[in-house]
């Protein structure tokens, strides 16, 4: 048996031979990510186009995809003007609803008393159908942008507040204890530990909120409006302009999808670590 030599830890510390977790930044190639949805869409649209042509479907019942696309091009200015109106309602309502949601969530997390008092109202508020509230808003605020913004804010508010509360509470209690042994004060734990760990939850809430915001804006316009994509849909439907109606729906969908992915993009920029952690977890 060899006599252990005087070890110099700086050079001799025998580290276990373990490979670091693979730093796998390879994502599916662009083609791999774009092709499947593209191909699937082509198949669906192709089948639709073929059906309308072969079965000679009345365009008042079901217009062909090509006709819908043509209508978007033909009425580009009309759709653009109304899309801007709806987009404005969505963005203002979304920002107001999300800000109120985050603010209330922080408040309720700080005070148990406030949470007990307010939370039932929070849930109850979601049981009141917007259908019933929206006309009253129109009575109060008239045919202005205000009732639409309020409807959007109302539908955005709930998912944000619930998710943020869950996020602020989901912080690992052991992490909090560790920070306390490091001498961290409670306000600092809120800032440095609770808030960052709540961000993934917050963004989940924001994504749901954004999807609801689009529906909220359209609904707000249906109740009382003279412009916007929702108003336009109603008007086109009344005129049996089915092709143009489909075109309006298409424009609205594209807008909604873009907004949704924008929230996702902001999420990736703000909390890149969240996706890395998730990817690492799925690799193990």
């Amino acid at each position, binding site marked *: 048996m060899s006599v*252990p030599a005087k070890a110099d830890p*700086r050079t001799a510390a*025998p580290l276990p031979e373990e490979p670091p977790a693979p730093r796998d930044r390879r994502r599916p190639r662009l083609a791999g990510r774009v092709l499947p949805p593209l191909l699937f869409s082509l198949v669906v649209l192709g089948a639709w186009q073929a059906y309308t042509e072969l079965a000679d479907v009345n365009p008042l019942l079901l217009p062909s995809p090509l006709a819908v696309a043509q209508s978007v091009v033909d009425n580009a200015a009309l759709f653009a003007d109304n899309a801007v109106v709806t987009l404005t309602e969505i963005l203002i309502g979304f920002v107001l609803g999300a800000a109120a949601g985050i603010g209330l969530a922080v408040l309720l997390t700080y005070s148990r008393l406030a949470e007990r008092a307010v939370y039932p109202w929070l849930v109850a508020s979601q049981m009141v159908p917007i259908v019933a509230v929206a006309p009253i808003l129109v009575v109060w605020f008239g045919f202005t942008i205000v009732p639409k913004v309020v409807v959007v804010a109302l539908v955005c508010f709930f998912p944000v507040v619930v998710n943020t509360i869950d996020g602020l509470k989901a912080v690992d209690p052991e992490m909090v*204890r560790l920070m306390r042994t490091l001498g961290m004060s409670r306000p600092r734990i809120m800032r440095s*530990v609770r808030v960052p760990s709540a961000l993934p939850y917050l963004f989940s809430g924001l994504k749901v909120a954004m999807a609801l915001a689009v529906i909220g804006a359209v609904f707000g316009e249906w109740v009382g409006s003279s412009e916007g994509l929702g108003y336009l849909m109603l008007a086109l439907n009344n005129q049996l302009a089915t092709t143009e109606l489909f075109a309006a729906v298409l424009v609205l969908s594209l807008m909604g999808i873009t907004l949704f992915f924008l929230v996702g993009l902001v999420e990736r920029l703000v909390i890149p670590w969240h996706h890395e952690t998730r990817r690492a977890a799925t690799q193990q």
Partner: protein
Amino acid sequence: MDRVRLRAEGLGKRFASRDGGVQALDGLDLEVSDGEFVSVIGPSGCGKSTLFNLLAGLEEPTAGTLWLDGDRVDAGRLLGRVGYMPQRDLLMPWRTILDNTILGLEVAGVGRAEGRRRAGELFGEFGLAGFERRRPSELSGGMRQRAALLRTFLAGREVILLDEPFGALDSLTRAGMQQWLVQVWEEHRKTILLITHDVDEALFLSDRVYVLTPRPGRVELVLEVDLPRPRSYELITSEPFTERKQLLLEHLGMTLPPRKAS
């Protein structure tokens, strides 16, 4: 070097509950001197975690007294003075490894740049060189534990508590970590109290081992580990080591199979 850093006398902790409560610890005496490596082992349910929470100042004992550097202290005065490393690394996923290790320095008011410089100097020794800017999810379990240990080291506490730091690692990685830790400790001579249920780990690393009884936790045996330092891993198969190991196992209530004559 014999100055007592942390001392517990008659330490007890009782958790009240509707059906009478649980006595987790009862009349526990323990001390750790400056630059000593001390381990606590015991069967599960002996209140090891409770003991650590008391020593870290996270909970108030229901009986007994604690001294830190000769001063009688309550939980409020212990909190933030005793370093604590839990079983899970608890690295913040949103911080880089480097910024995770400087947390203690940051809280102490050391600037980020200065903290990063000080931490960076130790990255080589902790086997983390080149991983400063990575995030925790990109590192293996062993590396994450070393980063967590570096975070605890850098917080510069008088006493460091390690709560089964390698418990979640596979046995080969754990053995490697033990060899590494013994050398790092022999270099830095930090005052360390380790909780473990790994008898080899306790003996290999420690100057003294406390064996606790099952609930309520009391000290069953104190063993001074007078094995020579510096230690290398061959030690754990040597006769003096296995003799002590057998003694510890007996006190842990393990009945050993009769040894085969060799």
